């Protein structure tokens, strides 16, 4: 299979006139471990395409986002050949600058290629016949926990089935581990916790067709109530992405809830003596027996329309994201969960991982994939997310009587700034 794909890539390449040895340079913008993981595919890629030099520039997530948007607004000036973007935010670009990312169909991305990825991933990247990017990874939500801290408090992670269980466990863990907080959320700069629990409960900012606002529906109300309880019990402190990793490295936090792509960031940022001390379990649900799967994050690679090396760029993107070899390398090195369906059957997935206390983490992570219904982005994700961040802080500080009132207000504000109606 692997060889066939490489052969296929080589054939495409030769028909497109790139593999004729003509050297070309392509530049890529990506953030965090995503950039590192692309770097890790270069060895394999250059074995097939020695003539293409790939320069990967590792930036912060906010930097990539603001630079790409500014460059698209400037008609593509200053864009690299390839850039990373979050799936949930991509419609912002395609709605405002439909020609900023090139149409991959023109470069040879066929319908059959599209079927190699989950339908929801492709749906967000298509407008009409145009395909604006190639799906990269997904983010099944997991609870990343410290085995030693849970053990010390006598807490069994498998017994944490509901958020109430999580709160009880948190109290015990904080009592047994001096100076440790149960968990962190990016409270001051994001609404990820809310979005994860809301997604688990089947709720999102917008309806699945993207035409109405659903942020005040029961699933979202339940999610905000959970956040408030965890915060009120003193089990959650604020920290942006870097600070959550610092806390983990400093043995100051017992649990992190995040997309499975957090695996690589965590593993490569904590000291080596924490190897074997970490584990994963599924996120708790609101009610006993309720859903326990959600998605957060997940990216794509797009090729700039302004690129002079579109063909070479496409070669690289289709190797890194469209072959098992590329995708499994990134999973192995940095924990990026492939959205390429065939990569999920790779034998590597069944291996135990020493860092994770011998757990077969990828088997666990991937088993939740088909229970996930990811939230839709729409061009208005940013607007809604900003309103939600403000609402969440106001609610946590007691400015609203109930979560429902807070979210009704948020729905009004989102409706006001986007012009979309609130769902019945």
């Amino acid at each position, binding site marked *: 299979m692997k060889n066939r794909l490489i052969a296929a890539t080589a054939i495409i390449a030769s028909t497109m006139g790139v593999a004729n040895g003509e050297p070309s340079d392509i530049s890529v913008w990506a953030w965090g471990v995503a950039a590192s993981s692309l770097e890790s595919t270069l060895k394999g890629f250059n074995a097939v395409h020695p003539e293409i030099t790939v320069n990967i520039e590792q930036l912060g997530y*906010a930097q990539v*986002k*603001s630079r790409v*948007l*500014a460059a698209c*607004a400037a008609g593509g000036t200053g864009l690299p050949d390839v850039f990373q973007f979050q799936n949930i935010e991509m419609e*912002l670009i395609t*709605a*405002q600058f*439909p020609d900023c990312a090139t149409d991959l169909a023109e470069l040879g991305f066929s319908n059959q290629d599209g079927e190699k990825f989950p339908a929801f991933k492709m749906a967000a990247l298509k407008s009409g016949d145009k395909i604006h990017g190639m799906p990269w990874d997904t983010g099944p939500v997991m609870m990343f926990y410290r085995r030693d801290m849970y053990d010390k408090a006598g807490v069994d992670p498998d017994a944490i089935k509901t958020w109430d269980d999580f709160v009880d466990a948190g109290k015990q863990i904080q009592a047994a581990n001096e100076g440790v*907080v149960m968990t962190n959320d990016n*409270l*001051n*700069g994001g609404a990820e916790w809310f979005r994860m629990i809301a997604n688990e409960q089947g709720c999102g900012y917008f309806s699945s067709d993207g035409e109405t606002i659903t942020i005040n529906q029961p699933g979202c109300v339940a999610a905000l109530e959970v956040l408030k309880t965890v915060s009120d019990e003193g089990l959650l*402190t*604020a*920290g*942006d992405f870097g*600070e959550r990793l*610092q*806390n983990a490295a*400093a043995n*100051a936090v017992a649990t992190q809830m995040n997309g499975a792509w957090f695996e690589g960031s965590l593993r490569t940022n904590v000291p080596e003596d924490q190897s074997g001390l970490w584990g994963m379990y599924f996120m708790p649900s609101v009610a006993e027996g309720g859903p326990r799967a959600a998605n957060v994050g997940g990216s794509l690679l797009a090729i700039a329309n302004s690129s002079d090396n579109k063909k070479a760029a496409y070669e690289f993107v289709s190797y890194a994201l469209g072959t098992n070899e590329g995708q499994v390398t990134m999973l192995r090195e940095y924990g990026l969960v492939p959205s390429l369906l065939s990569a999920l059957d790779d034998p590597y997935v069944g291996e135990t991982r020493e860092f994770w206390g011998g757990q077969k983490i990828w088997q666990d992570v991937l088993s939740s994939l088909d229970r996930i219904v990811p939230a839709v982005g729409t*061009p*208005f994700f*940013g*607007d809604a997310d*900003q*309103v939600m*961040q*403000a*609402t*969440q*802080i*106001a609610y946590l*500080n007691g400015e609203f009587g109930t979560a429902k009132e807070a979210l009704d207000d948020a729905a009004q*504000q989102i409706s*006001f*700034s*986007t*012009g979309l109606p609130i769902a019945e």
Partner: protein
Amino acid sequence: MRLRTTTAYGFLLPYLAIFAAFWLWPIVYSFYLSFMSTRRLPWSFNPGMTWGRIVQDPAFFNALGNTLTILLIQVPVMIALATVLAVLLNSRLLMAKGLLRFAFFAPVVIGEAAYAAVFRLMFNSEFGIVNKGMEAVGLPGIQWFGNPDAAMAVIIIAVTWRWVGYNAIIILSGLQSIPEDVYEAARLDNVSPRQQFLYITLPLLRPVILFCLVLSVIGSMQLFAEPYLITNQGGPGGATETLGLFLYRQGFLNLNFGYASAIAYTIAALAVAISLLNLWLGRERT
């Protein structure tokens, strides 16, 4: 005569062309944009989505409120501190004057990104020196970046730290221009040092302080880097979002250029209003 003006305009042309392309045209174009709904392509004429929104947008009033809060708390506190600092730096009893003056001025020299990163670390709720210090003396730690008021306090402290020395140096130059014989006469009349400060130093410093005030007000209106870098883009939940940050967010993160243009014009109008107020205050003095 005519030829001479033509030649003069010829020399001015490169500048005028650049001015027209990069100043005049954007100013005119953004005025046009401020009437357009830019939420979806194609853009359409719909002032209700821009001007109609700004007069009732809670997020805009939040940013305006935050900017005014900083203006009304940070600027007076900083100018008062700077005046006291300047008087102390001017003291005869002070050793190593040059070194101390440089030390207080130094924060301005440091890049915004560098000092923002240090402030984030100092106020980190788990490991920051501020919370560790408070815990050491028995006070409870504060969630500096999770609590809206605390986050605002951090911004005010940071901006004050950065600019107080700069203002103190300007005020110090004002102090040194006050003739020594005025104080000599006061001492002969047995005026206490406190009264000297209140009735001689302060009134004579008034123009310098007013100058610092105008500069600081303009600086506060434009505040962007601190809330962007220190409180994670105006967090928590917009509690430290200033007008500049709000404009950036609408224009370059939400790609809502129409609304961003309307915000830009509103900020400009506010700046004009405040400048007129300053002029009026200045005129009354003479």
